[in-house]
């Protein structure tokens, strides 16, 4: 299969460009580019990276809940106008989000890309991979992203602003985010991989951050997207997924019942895309990577669409070629040329 026809290869190319842009972009587009682009990017691109071109929406959200709303509530000076910065941040996020929907995860996030690259390295090292997680384990993990969003992005910052908890919890998600460590390391800074000894709270948060980073690095060698499953951005995207222009649609046929290849291909183990009879199958955990469409063998059953325009529609010929390319990549079969010869 020619590389330019392979959606996963195209996606890797886009992810690589996005990684370069988000991690080093300000070198090319100017130091203050975040002020022009959004300052509320819908993927984990970090403001601690001195060269970033734009930074993630979760940073201003935590600060606005903590510094602005929390402190004003504590001082008894809260007015509705204090919600304006939060609405502005969410509005800016939404303008971008509508354009690409959850594809910010599958196509642009630096941490999502890093986990995929580690997975590819794991495949090449012939490590014993767990392609699909156990259904029960998946179900147990799923609520974690909501806890991460509600506790680490909203409630703890708010409680910190109110004075109920220490200032350590003013921006707790940033404090533990593996993308902060990844992107700063990629930008040549070692100053975000640290243990903070200034207080017990900061020490615990920095231990969690560094451990999580090490954990994600190793787990992604043998498991698909380990951090994405608990990422608060995934939860935030879920809240707005109905307004995004990129859609994942399915035309259910009875043949689906016996197949299930889409769910097997899904890096987020969303088994519901197999069983669902709905047209809109953009599930909360989806990252719009499009693998399910690639690996659906039935013509026109699954499609990635931009509003009403189909971008990628499932097709038996593509499926065959893609499957063969995958096996060649994984070293499971002789190369396509060799198999032709034999």
């Amino acid at each position, binding site marked *: 299969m020619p590389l330019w026809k392979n959606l996963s290869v195209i996606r890797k190319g886009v992810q690589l460009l996005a990684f370069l842009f988000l991690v080093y972009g300000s070198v090319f587009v100017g130091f203050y580019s975040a002020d022009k682009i959004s300052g509320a990017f819908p993927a984990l691109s970090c403001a601690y990276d001195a060269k970033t071109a734009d930074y993630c929406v979760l940073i201003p959200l935590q600060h606005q809940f903590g510094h602005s709303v929390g402190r004003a509530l504590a001082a008894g000076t809260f007015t509705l106008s204090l919600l304006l910065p939060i609405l502005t941040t969410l509005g800016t996020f939404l303008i971008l989000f509508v354009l690409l929907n959850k594809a910010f995860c599958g196509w642009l996030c630096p941490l999502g890309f890093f986990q995929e690259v580690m997975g590819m390295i794991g495949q090449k090292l012939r490590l014993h991979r*767990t392609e699909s997680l156990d259904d029960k384990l998946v179900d147990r993990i799923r609520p974690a992203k909501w806890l991460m969003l509600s506790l680490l992005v909203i409630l703890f910052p708010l409680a910190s602003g109110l004075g109920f908890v220490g200032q350590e919890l003013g921006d707790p998600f940033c404090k533990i985010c593996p993308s902060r*460590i990844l992107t700063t390391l990629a930008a040549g800074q*070692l*100053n975000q991989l640290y243990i903070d000894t200034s207080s017990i709270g900061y020490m615990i948060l920095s231990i969690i951050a560094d451990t999580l980073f*090490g954990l994600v690095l190793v787990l992604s060698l043998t498991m698909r997207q380990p951090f994405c499953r608990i990422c608060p951005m995934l939860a935030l995207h879920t809240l707005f997924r109905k307004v995004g222009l990129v859609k994942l649609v399915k035309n259910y046929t009875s043949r689906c019942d016996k197949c299930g290849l889409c769910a097997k291909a899904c890096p987020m183990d969303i088994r519901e895309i197999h069983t669902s009879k709905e047209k809109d199958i953009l599930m909360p955990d989806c990252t719009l990577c499009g693998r399910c469409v690639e690996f659906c063998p039935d013509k026109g059953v699954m499609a990635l669409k931009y509003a009403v325009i189909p971008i990628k529609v499932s097709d038996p010929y593509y499926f065959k070629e893609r499957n063969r390319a995958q096996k060649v990549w994984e070293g499971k079969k002789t190369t396509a040329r060799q198999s032709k010869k034999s």
Partner: protein
Amino acid sequence: MRGVWLAGVLAAMAVMPCPAAAAMHWAPAPVEHEKGHGGHDRSAGKAFVLVDGEGANLTLINPKLLEKPLASEGSSVTLKATGMGNYHALLARRSQAGLQESAIRYHYMNGKPSGTSPSLLIAHEKSALEIVPDPLAREHWRYYANTDARFIVRFQGKPLAGATVMMATTNGTTVGFMADADGNLSIPLPEDFAEVKAGRADNRPAEFVLTASHHDGDSRFVTTFSAAYHVNPEQWQSTGLGLATAGGGMLLGGVMIWRMRRRKEDK
């Protein structure tokens, strides 16, 4: 090379009075120290004093370069929110008999996104002689002790080769520097905090003032740039321990994978 540098600095010290004591510059008005996080001091209603600035014209320039005169009470001004977010420039200008002085300070204010980046405000020629931050600290960035801060010295909009600049800090450091042929200046912010406590919130920032002076014909130009700088968090953040902990995380990951495999094999 060192001789040229020294000669330049000595010449600068000869032509300008002690900057900390005499050159007009902005400083934060003394307030009771408030504990807490703050990448920038974003609060509206922030007060500044213009040191040695009697008779100067005061202006606030917003991110879109709209200039507004600033009313002062004595030597201090209180900045109220302009409704626009991002960096604003506080500018003081004074001209008297062959001497043109200016003092510039950048201040972050919360408000509606301006849609412009600080590059516009920074590039804007605010006075004939100007010390331009290159770049100015951004979100999550500050001036830290033991790091280099970069500047460009400009005269009439063009880089001033070999400009001499004096740095004075409120912690008592005074050092001279000389810009290169393109007016670029890299200033190592000194580690001169007498007492360092562990943690950002427990250390007050200090101030540094850069003063540049230049003669052009019969006119003399003096400008200052002032900003806060902070104790470097590396004092209480250990990279070695961080690396070791990440290594521990990797090990934990290895154990988890091994256990998952065992469990699968047992089934």
